């Protein structure tokens, strides 16, 4: 049975991460930008799990777990912020949200 | 044939999937019939009657109708999501069934010992959860992609409702898990063997009656059943998220809902009601229960067949009576008892729960939306939390 080098997983992780960064840079919708962040976090999680496999230790899994939990918390607060921004400025375009005060 | 011998596991799995799909699809179809009958009886009606004996062919007719109706795709919808949604709904609903074991026996198929479950997993319960949590996307996507206000409202409501009710649901599940100490559905049942007092719903040190009730309530909400059918409230949102759907797509949503009902009923059975175990040991005669039931049913059918209220029943009742008696006979055969009896008990318990679904649909009115959300956050969630806490303390105390 053919086996996959661990490097493939890491490369996949890198690709996903860079795609996340690209999303962050090129998208203007705050929600999409936020989702790009989630994508980056996921990419990093994949690396953690791959390392966990490579080192045969459960710690990597736990790191990924904590990242997940923090991401959940972040999503709650982030989306609340987005709601507030939208209420205040009626726009979701981050290029239009350039100043701290209106 | 070469393929079969080379990949026996794959082939056996495919066979199991095929059988399960067939059985479940049929069951789904007849569940609609069953529901209509039950609700009709509650409302002093007869229900479907004309297509086939006692309307038994009604589901078939419905299916044919759905298949051949024009498949309308409204012009302003988001096509991909619109098509994806019903597909997703049904696919996910059916996928969950793959994890549900229906009996303890291991049978040989093509020389391959296999269990009565499509996919056996040690973390089946979590996976079940994971898969079913995806199901919400079907509703949301359907609501959003229809590009219409009622579906959107339905989608919004249902996403909020399903996220909210998932909390008490998972908390309610966690409590019996503390008693059984496993995540495998199969082992879960094994720990409950030995009669009704070993079922999690009644088992010491802390009977999980509260969890069971909470689970059922949350399950009603998760499957969007009355009295929590806000997302599809017929008289407010027309039909909620699937207003704009027709023909087979609509049927998919419909089937997915019934499939979910089956899933949660089986989950409740496995988690709380001892799965396929008999209420009391076979040594005390529990193995004759199905025989007795079916025999009784057969006798009753035959008795009614002698003098029927309506003419057409004069033929059908005796036929049913004979069939029931035959089934009773089958249950007496020792070689099939080993796997047929657990199957009977499993189906009986699940069926009872499904009946409860319909029963409640026939009796309770719908909640208001704020009541719905308030109920889970202010009552169900704290109670489930408290229950989990007490269970955990007692388990730690007695172990």
């Amino acid at each position, binding site marked *: 049975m053919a086996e996959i080098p661990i490097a493939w997983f890491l490369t996949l992780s890198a690709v996903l991460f860079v795609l996340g960064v690209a999303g*962050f840079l090129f998208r203007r919708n705050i929600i999409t930008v936020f989702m790009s962040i989630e994508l980056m976090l996921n990419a990093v999680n994949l690396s953690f799990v791959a390392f966990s496999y490579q080192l045969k230790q459960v710690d990597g899994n736990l790191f990924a777990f904590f990242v997940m939990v923090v991401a959940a918390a972040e999503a709650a607060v982030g989306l609340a912020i987005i709601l507030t921004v939208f209420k205040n400025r009626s726009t979701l375009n981050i290029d239009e949200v350039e100043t701290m005060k209106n | 044939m070469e393929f079969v011998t080379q990949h026996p596991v794959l082939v056996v799995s495919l066979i199991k999937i095929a059988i399960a799909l067939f059985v479940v699809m049929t069951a789904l179809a007849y569940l609609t019939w069953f529901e209509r009958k039950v609700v009709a009886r509650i409302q002093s009606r007869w229900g479907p009657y004309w297509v086939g004996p006692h309307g038994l062919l009604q589901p078939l007719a419905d299916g044919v109708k759905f298949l051949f109706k024009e498949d309308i795709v409204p012009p302003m919808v988001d096509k991909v999501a619109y098509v994806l949604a019903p597909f997703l709904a049904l696919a996910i609903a059916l996928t969950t069934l793959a994890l549900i074991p229906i009996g303890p026996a291991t049978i040989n198929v093509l020389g391959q010992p296999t269990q009565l479950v499509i996919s056996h997993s040690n973390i089946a319960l979590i996976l079940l959860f994971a898969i079913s949590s995806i199901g919400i996307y079907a509703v949301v996507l359907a609501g959003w992609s229809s590009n219409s206000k009622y579906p959107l409202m339905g989608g919004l409501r249902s996403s909020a409702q399903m996220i909210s009710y998932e909390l008490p649901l998972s908390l309610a599940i966690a409590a019996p898990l503390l008693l059984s100490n496993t995540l495998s559905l199969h082992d879960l049942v094994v720990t409950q063997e030995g009669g009704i007092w070993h079922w999690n719903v009644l088992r010491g040190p802390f009977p999980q009656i509260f969890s069971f009730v909470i689970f059922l309530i949350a399950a009603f909400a998760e499957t969007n059943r009355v009295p929590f059918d806000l997302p599809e409230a017929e008289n407010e949102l027309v039909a909620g998220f699937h207003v704009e759907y027709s023909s087979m797509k609509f049927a998919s949503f419909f089937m997915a809902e019934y499939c979910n009902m089956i899933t949660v009923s089986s989950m409740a059975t496995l988690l709380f009601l001892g799965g396929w175990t008999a209420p009391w040991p076979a040594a005390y005669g529990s193995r004759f229960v199905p025989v007795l039931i079916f025999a009784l049913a057969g006798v009753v059918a035959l008795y009614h067949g002698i003098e029927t209220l309506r003419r057409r029943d004069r033929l059908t009742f005796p036929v049913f009576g004979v069939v029931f008696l035959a089934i009773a006979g089958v249950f007496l055969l020792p070689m099939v008892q080993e796997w047929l009896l657990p199957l009977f008990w499993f189906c009986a318990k699940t069926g009872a729960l499904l009946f409860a679904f319909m029963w409640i649909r026939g009796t309770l009115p719908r909640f208001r939306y704020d009541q719905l959300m308030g109920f889970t956050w202010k009552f169900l969630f704290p109670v489930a939390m408290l229950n989990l806490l007490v269970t955990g303390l007692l388990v730690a105390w007695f172990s």
Partner: protein
Amino acid sequence: MQLWLIPLLPFAGFLVNGLAGRRFPKGAVNAVAIGSVLLSFAWVLKTLFTINLDAINQEHYFTWIQSGALTVGCDMAVDRLTAVMLLVVTGIGSLIHIYSIGYMAHEGGYYRFFSFLNLFMFFMLVLVLASNYLVMFVGWEGVGLCSYLLIGFYFDKKFATNAGNKAFIVNRIGDFGFSLAMFYMVRNFGSLDFGTVFKAAPGASEAVLTTIGLLLMLGACGKSAQLPLYVWLPDAMAGPTPVSALIHAATMVTAGVYMTARSWVIYTHAPLALNTIAIIGVATAFFAATIGLAQTDIKKVFAYSTVSQLGYMFLGVGSGAFSAGIFHLMTHAFFKALLFLGSGSVIHALAGEQDMRNMGGLRHKIPWTFWTMMCAAVAISGVPPTSGFFSKDSILVAANHHAPWMYWLGVVTAGMTAFYVFRAMFLTFFGEYRGHAHPHESPPLMTIPLAMLALLSLGGGYIAVPAFLGRFFPTVEAPEDFTLVAISVAFGLGGIALAYLMYIARPGMADSLAGGLKGLYSLVYNKYFVDEIYDAAVVKPVVGGSRVVLWKGMDVGFIDGMVNGVGALARRTGAVLRLLQSGNIRSYATWVLFGSVVVIVALELGGGAR
């Protein structure tokens, strides 16, 4: 022994009254404040009766500072010197507390007054009980704080707060000396513990001891209002009269004397420092007495009298007669507290009037006050056999032994003391009443403490303090010379007679004398313009210097210039960098990405990860 109970009882009173007193009725405030002080007094008595004063009665509570070789513990100890001080502080403190109930009955901030008073008792007792210099310093600073708080008790009056500030600031100069002395001690003896320091002191070089002695003396001058730092004490009369009696006559101001006596081991090995103390003492005594001659405010008279008497104590201590100094400290506490309380009673009777020119003829209207004050006046004038006679004469005898000119100056001062005290008495109680108020005798709560203090003033001389302390201090071998005693008594009686002559027998004489010696009189009346001189010599230059050099030059010119320059620089840089600060998140993110890439590249070039 439980020595900690002695200071902590008043502290508990302070906490209760300070935190909750606002809601208490006056009775409860009284009960807490006076009860705690009386209990403390009782505990002092019990302690003194049960312990052997010649043994080392030290108690260690906890290690306060542990730094390298230096260890400072929170220690307390009782010896003979402490015993005298404890009795004076708690005894007179109790009487004045009781007196305060009557005096403060109609004042605002009642609970505040008593909580401060209790706090003062706490710190004073810590000061007295301390067994090392640092704990003593805690008490020292604490009483300073309470003095400040109580001088400024009527904080809605500008002069009161100013007086408080003045006392605080002038005291800081003294404390500066005290601190330096402590640093020097740590450096030379490696400890601040009395026992350790005094054991090591005889072996140290005289220069070191003289330095320490002079620095400690600076502290003592500040606290005990000696020349040239006495200026705060007369102003401190802005506080309520019981405060003047307790803090600024009987206890706190004598802390300097106590500290000097406590450090007698150092001083006996530093004759230069001791001599300086004697000179400062006698100079202060004389100088303050001359000012006292011409004051018209009754409390000011007694304030300068206090300064003068403190000078006596310094003279005693400086002459090497430590026990005489402490003896005078005690008797002075009796009669000066009595004088202040009596004047308080007068002021109370006249509804706040303090100017003696508006008094007169009060001896029939407030007889209790008159007779008790008369006892104190007799005592302070050194008329035998009152307490003042014994203590003052033992100082004068020692001074004669030390340096005869000091004796003569002291004797002249004694004459002046008798004169100005009786001048005050005559102006207040004799002749015709010149004011407009309706004098009335004070309540018993005030007169009973007065009476008790009067008894002590008269008979206090028979308390054998010198003999009691004789086993503690080295005794000065001064020959008992009856002539010297007779001379000083004669001067005292002469002063009284002169006062009688000028204010009773020939009432016009005082004014004509003042007219005749106009320049001298106005010089004395205006306290030699010391405050004005200080203002011109110290305060104005400091303020002006601060204003011109520090403010205009340093602050505005240099620092502001620098800050503004930095600001301008930042602004100009910012103008350029603002192009980066677009507010556009995506462009920021690009910069972050850029930075990450740079870091990764740098890591790779620097040898790579792993």
